[in-house]
């Protein structure tokens, strides 16, 4: 709309408008008064003899954007699985705010209190239309009867349509999500995550399979979401991590090796040895 935003810029990151998803959702039980959104303390997970996570401590502040890096097998995905309820740790505790004990909840409950997850592989519901995908993800009731009785009113309809427009899928609104290209599925999944409006977002390798231009848009989007939403990004692409310009946590063999800004991490001798050692990190 404004001249500066131009035509090629993604409408998601237009600055002349406050999107609904930028306003955080209220959850009754959530208490973030101490400023920390996620507490993981002394977590250990053992998969049949393989120590995936050992004595991990990890905190995410309210509204913080955090990058999580580490070599393969460092435990990044396991950590996300623990937070979203897919994996139960052998020891340790996981709290969302001060009051919500994540270890006592299943995946659906955790999603309902406001933790969203974007998978590495775009996972949309292929046989449902783009519209249906967005509709199902939309924050709101998950009660069986209310889901059955749910009607789409004008306001919801325009919300869904504006989201489809935002992620550039308005022309495909009623085609099955399975027909979309890889990049379009990525965007649809981001749209679904935004419709879900979580307070904590776990984003697994968002840049995988994206063009440079799409990556830039994703960086802008994640930066815009941070502040009101706590976000944890797992990524292998160092350029992408650098572009996010956020604190970085390095995992190695299931525990935290280092934490700090990208510059500090790059200067850290331990990190250079175990992870970045073979790479040229000066650029």
């Amino acid at each position: 709309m404004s001249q500066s935003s131009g035509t090629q810029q993604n409408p998601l990151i237009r600055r002349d408008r406050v999107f609904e998803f930028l306003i955080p959702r209220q959850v009754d039980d959530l208490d973030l008064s101490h400023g920390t959104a996620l507490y993981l303390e002394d977590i250990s997970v053992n998969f049949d003899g393989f120590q995936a996570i050992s004595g991990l401590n990890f905190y995410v502040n309210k509204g913080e954007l955090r990058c999580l890096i580490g070599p393969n097998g460092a435990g990044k995905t396991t950590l996300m699985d623990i937070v979203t309820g897919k994996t139960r740790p052998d020891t340790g505790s996981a709290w969302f705010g001060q009051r919500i004990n994540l270890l006592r909840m299943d995946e659906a409950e955790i999603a309902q209190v406001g933790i969203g997850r974007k998978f590495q592989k775009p996972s949309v519901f292929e046989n449902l239309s783009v519209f249906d995908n967005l509709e199902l993800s939309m924050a709101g009731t998950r009660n069986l009867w209310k889901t059955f009785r749910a009607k789409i009113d004008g306001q919801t309809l325009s919300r869904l349509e504006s989201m489809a427009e935002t992620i550039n899928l308005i022309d495909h609104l009623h085609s099955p999500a399975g027909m979309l290209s890889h990049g379009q599925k990525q965007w649809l999944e981001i749209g679904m995550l935004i419709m879900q409006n979580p307070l904590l977002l776990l984003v697994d390798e968002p840049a995988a399979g994206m063009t440079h231009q799409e990556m830039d848009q994703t960086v802008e989007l994640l930066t815009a979401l941070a502040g009101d939403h706590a976000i944890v990004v797992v990524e292998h692409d160092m350029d992408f991590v650098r572009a996010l310009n956020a604190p970085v946590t390095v995992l190695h063999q299931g525990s935290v090796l280092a934490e700090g800004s990208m510059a500090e991490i790059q200067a850290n001798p331990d990190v250079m040895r175990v992870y970045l050692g073979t790479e040229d990190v000066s650029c």
Partner: protein
Amino acid sequence: MSIQRTHQSRTSTLLFVIVLMATLIGVTVCNQLPESHPLHVGNYMITLLGKYLTYAILAVSVDLVWGYLGILSLGHAAFFALGGYAMGMHLMRQIGDRGVYGNPDLPDFMVFLNWTELPWYWLGFDNFAFTALMILLVPGLLAFVFGWFAFRSRVNGVYLSIITQALTYALMLAFFRNEMGLGGNNGLTDFRELLGFDLRSDEVRLGLFLASGIALLFVYLLCNVILRSRLGKVSIAIRDAEDRTRFIGYRVEHVKLALFTLSAMIAGLAGALYVPQVGIINPGEFSPLNSIEVVVWVAIGGRGTLYGAVLGAIGVNYAKTWFTGAYPEAWLFALGLLFVLVTLVLPKGVAGLFKRAKTGTSPS
């Protein structure tokens, strides 16, 4: 585009309703024609068609959980048989003192076993309203308890199918026992009347045929309403990506439990309409093979389309009637061949053929 899409599925529902209504009315009219008339439909055919319609209801119930929720139940005939037994018990009580032994309270087989009083679980079955409730409640309760354990423990796929198969087999063995008080090996038979109507009269047979048709219509529309709602979309989401559905906050096990229980109740209703038309219910109805056959009907007709399930049930059973008359030994081979061919050539069944024809002609 949105309007077009809903319009199409509305059209197919409307088309189904019109075809079904036209069939019911047409058959009724043809039945009234004099026997010499070329379009006359005999009473034997009426009962046969009525039976097919109850099979169609059963097929819809299987399609609801298999085609739209991904639960391959290989034990749905158990719910069908339970509904049938509930109806059978009512019909036994309706015989009154007209049985061979003339005992006003006890069915013949109990007198034969020297039982002196009616077991507690037979109480109330002389009342039709109570029976009608049990027809839905007994299969529903079994499905609820079974589903509660299975879905909460996240038993999925082949394992779930095997357990459902075991369930129906266990029930078959139990119902074979005379101590169950449900007629053992012979089951329940020799029915006389339902709600005061003589089951052997032609009018009542026509009435049961029409009742089955109306029940099919009702069940079809009910499933349609559910599948068109957001719950139906959640159900398809669960079928395609169960874990993903959990991560956006839906309680997968609740959805599964609700639809599985509903499906079992529908199967029970089908069984209850089946029994007065065929005149007997015995433990053979619990046979695992029966449940597998239902799945074959749905696969042939087209999994994931309700009208496909109806077409499959009626079509395959018509073929069965014809085959078992003409070449009795060949039927199972023919069914097997049909199943293999459909799996290879028409993975979406006969309904998939329609869809392909439709998209082929439209410029998309």
